[in-house]
């Protein structure tokens, strides 16, 4: 019983009305809204530019955003528990730098990828341990993690390092043909496999249910005897692992390592998760929604590329605007059901 008395003071949190009230289709509402937005944007694009309505434009959304999809998957886990991970962009850059440097020195690509995953997962695990055992806000710990990872990038090299290794270049150029003259990259298949695995973990395992329970009410989850401590630490390790995978995917995509790469990517990942309908307070959300969120961000970029007159900074403004709209919708939604 002594562990109970050392619990953090009970924060009075109303039993999430969202989850109890919503039955059937209603709890998918935020995610469905995002899906509707995506379809509407695609339709508008098709109306404005005839070449927009092609399967390849749709598939390119995946090809150009594989790393962001994987990042968003990891971030979904973290945000579902009510936390946040600001280090993901820097870990992506670190993974790219490590793989580019080691490949240049003639390491075996399989060993490099394994090492990168260990570094990413280890860094996440370390942050999770500090967050959980010293009771420091995830925000500040992952911020320090971001400094550390970005700083290690600088220590490795300030210059951009090209990747010329055979395996990486062949994966980068590989195209998997689909019926109808379409193709995807191998990275897309990997990203989709990770999404499927995350979906399975979240909805069909004890770990996944504990993640939702912690986000709903951490205190009750602990009183129910769920492994709160272990789950919270593992969630950050998972996010670190996802960041490392995203880093490898980004290496395939850009065939280089650069210490300033992926700057601000943590914001894109958080934006994708929020736009995908996950509540920032935790407890409610879907990993598939986050994927749709990434697609919405991707289609914004495609729009701007198609338009030609709009400058690149509109992307940031539109993403900020979308983020705002969805946060306000979440507030409205939470109030209505309360």
């Amino acid at each position, binding site marked *: 019983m002594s562990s109970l008395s050392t619990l953090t003071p009970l924060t009075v949190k109303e039993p999430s009305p969202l989850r109890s009230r919503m039955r059937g289709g209603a709890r998918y509402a935020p995610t469905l809204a995002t899906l509707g937005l995506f379809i509407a944007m695609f339709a508008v694009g098709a109306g404005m530019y005839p070449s927009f309505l092609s399967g390849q434009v749709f598939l390119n959304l995946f090809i150009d955003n594989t790393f962001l999809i994987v990042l968003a998957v990891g971030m979904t886990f973290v945000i579902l528990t009510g936390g946040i991970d600001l280090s993901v962009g820097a870990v992506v850059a670190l993974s790219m730098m490590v793989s580019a440097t080691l490949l240049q020195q003639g390491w075996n690509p399989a060993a490099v990828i394994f090492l990168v995953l260990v570094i990413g997962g280890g860094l996440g695990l370390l942050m999770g341990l500090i967050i959980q055992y010293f009771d420091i806000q995830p925000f500040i710990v992952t*911020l320090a993690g971001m400094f*550390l990872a970005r*700083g290690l990038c600088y220590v490795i090299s*300030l210059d951009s390092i090209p990747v010329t290794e055979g395996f990486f270049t062949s994966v980068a150029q590989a195209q998997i043909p689909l019926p109808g003259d379409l193709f995807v990259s191998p990275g897309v298949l990997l990203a989709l496999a990770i999404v499927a695995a995350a979906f399975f973990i979240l909805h069909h395992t004890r770990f996944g249910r504990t993640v939702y329970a912690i986000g709903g009410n951490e205190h009750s989850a602990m009183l129910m005897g769920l492994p709160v401590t272990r789950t919270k630490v593992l969630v950050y390790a998972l996010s670190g692992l996802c960041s490392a995978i995203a880093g490898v995917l980004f290496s395939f995509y850009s065939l280089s390592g650069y210490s300033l790469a992926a700057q601000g990517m943590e914001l894109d990942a958080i934006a994708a998760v929020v736009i995908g309908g996950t509540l920032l307070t935790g407890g409610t959300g879907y990993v598939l929604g986050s994927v749709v969120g990434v697609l919405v961000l991707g289609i914004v970029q495609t729009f701007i590329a198609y338009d030609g007159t709009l400058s690149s*900074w509109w992307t940031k403004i539109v993403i*900020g605007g979308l*983020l705002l709209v969805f*946060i306000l919708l979440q507030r409205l939604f939470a109030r209505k059901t309360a």
Partner: protein
Amino acid sequence: MKSLMKNRLAWPVIALAALLLLNQIFRPDFLSLRMQDGHLYGSIIDIMRNGAPTILIALGMTLVIATRGIDLSVGAVVAIAGAASCAYIAASPEPASPVTAAMAVLIAVLAGLLLGVWNGFLVSTVGVQPIIATLVLMTAGRGIAQLITGGQIVSVSNDHYKSIGAGYLFTLPVSILITAAVFVLAAVLTRRTALGILIEAVGINPVASRLAGLRSRNIIWIVYVFSAVCAAIAGLMISSNVTAADANNAGLYIEMDAILAVVIGGTSLAGGRYTLAGTVIGAFIIQTLTTTVYTLGIPPEVTLVFKALVVITVCLLQAPKARNLLRSLKAAPKPGTKEKVAI
């Protein structure tokens, strides 16, 4: 001695003194000041001048953090303020006149005011978590700054404008004087009136302070506006120091430095009690750290790793759990050894 050590400012001051001493050992002329052409010169002045924008932003951040909030958008506000003022000067018919410079300053401060009102609106009225509310502006803000500058680096040549960041007054750099003035203003406003106590009350228990009849909504609004205006002034300093507005890089990561300064200074991220003087010392520590890296001949690339380790150490020292652990280690000395109080 014991009561002195209990003072919350003791550790930051000791850390700063140790850093300065380290520099003095490696470069014997480090602490010396000299007069040249009527200006004071020296490493200390340089540290203060380079640290001025961070100190300003950290002051605003302190009050925001005291209300249990956080303001991630300050870097974006720095970029927007610099972009707005430089774009105005570049487009005006008399780009070198003092009136233009004054108008540019006014525009930047107004921009800061507006952005602060926006953040405050999201946090206090709409009730969005501070991290997320200010994340919106952090994401969109640099886009807005680029929109203002047209994606270019806008350079201006206005001597009056330049003096904000690079000028001298009474032998001291103007930026130091501005920062000192804001510090005094903030200290007087929060410590000589009830405002400071109200801010702490909101941070310690928002619900209780609202039930006690406090208009916590207005107080939260005030701190976000103050933070954004501080950031706007810092943006003026940064852009005027290089006489150009760089929408991409001006104030990049400055929110992290500011938060770090607040935490090192002894203000808890959990809200409540805060110390403005501690924040100033914290900002000095960060700036001195950067200088030390150069003095000791450590490659500057390592600075960020160094900073990360400092943040984590300071946070661990502040964490109640770590403190309890330390205390229990002290309270239970090994059997057989005489009890020693190591203070």
